[in-house]
């Protein structure tokens, strides 16, 4: 039970990967990508977890003197902020391309777009 977020992350990662590989609708593929992103963020956060400790905020619960023995690793959390912002940019770009593709062929079925297929 201690690493439940790690298991959740791996399961979500598999769901996202499955969605990317099997779905035919472009919007569903984009949703799978966002699930994949969130899964990776959850995994990074759970790697920094130390059992029995609390968030790295030095308020009443965590006196400044005992900070080292009471907080989880703050660095993965700072990195995940960057990763969330990047996944937001990627998702917005994918949605813009999906809009354009829909304008171009009036469909979102990925099998109908064969221009680059050989």
């Amino acid at each position, binding site marked *: 039970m201690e690493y439940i977020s790690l298991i959740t992350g791996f399961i979500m990662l598999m769901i996202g990967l499955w969605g990317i590989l099997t779905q035919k609708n472009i919007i569903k593929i984009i949703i799978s990508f966002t699930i994949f992103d969130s899964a990776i963020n959850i995994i990074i956060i759970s790697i920094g977890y130390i059992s029995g400790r609390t968030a790295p905020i030095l308020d009443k619960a965590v006196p400044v003197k005992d900070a080292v023995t009471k907080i989880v690793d703050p*660095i993965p959390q700072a990195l995940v902020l960057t990763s969330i912002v990047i996944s937001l940019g990627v998702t917005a770009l994918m*949605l813009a391309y999906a809009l*354009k593709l829909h304008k171009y062929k009036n469909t979102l079925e990925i099998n109908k777009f064969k221009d680059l297929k050989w």
Partner: protein
Amino acid sequence: MVRKFLIFILLATFSVIFINLYQDFKGQDKLNDLSTYYAENEPQELGAQNIVTSIVVTYRGFDTLGEVTILFLAASIIGFFLKIKESDKNKKRELRKTSEILETASKILVPLIFLLGVYVFANGHLTPGGGFQGGAIMASGMVLMLLANPEKDVKHSLFSGIESISGFTYVILGLLGIYFAYGFLDNRVLPLGQFGNIFSAGLIPVIYTFIGLKVGSELTNIVGNLKETQKETE
């Protein structure tokens, strides 16, 4: 059929890898050296209650500057990519009238959502939150406004103005650190103040306010662009 089989093999391989990773995973039992340094010295050095914020804005401030640039790039590529013809811009779309519940609720909720956004980015150095989160909350308020009045357009010039001014100010504040403190994006330009107070941690709340404004206006611009393409003639 072959395709399905290959997908199955790929997923099965990944599950085996993950199960092995999970079984061999041993969490840390104490902080590593860098985190220990942050936990021990951050309150005296930077005076921010939230250690994650102090890492994001000051210790790794350069990284955050790059992050803001990535968001700006994404927003401007979308603006360029979804550009519509001038003749299409003033077209009226035939839309169903907004329901009264949404219209009334948005009038009450939008100011409150904005207030929450400002609270989140002004308290970024004390509580969980910060510029990116607060900006996203403010943009969600703008989305609610757009849903309630679908005929209205996002004023791109206004939001681009806010965005460029706050981005520029962010870099200027970073440069002030070189002259008045110990390096680029150093927060000790202003006095550190009382630990745990809202006016503490030097430049961190100021920088986060500008990041919040920048992120909020960028996200609003993206949503506005996505909305406007629907006017385009087929």
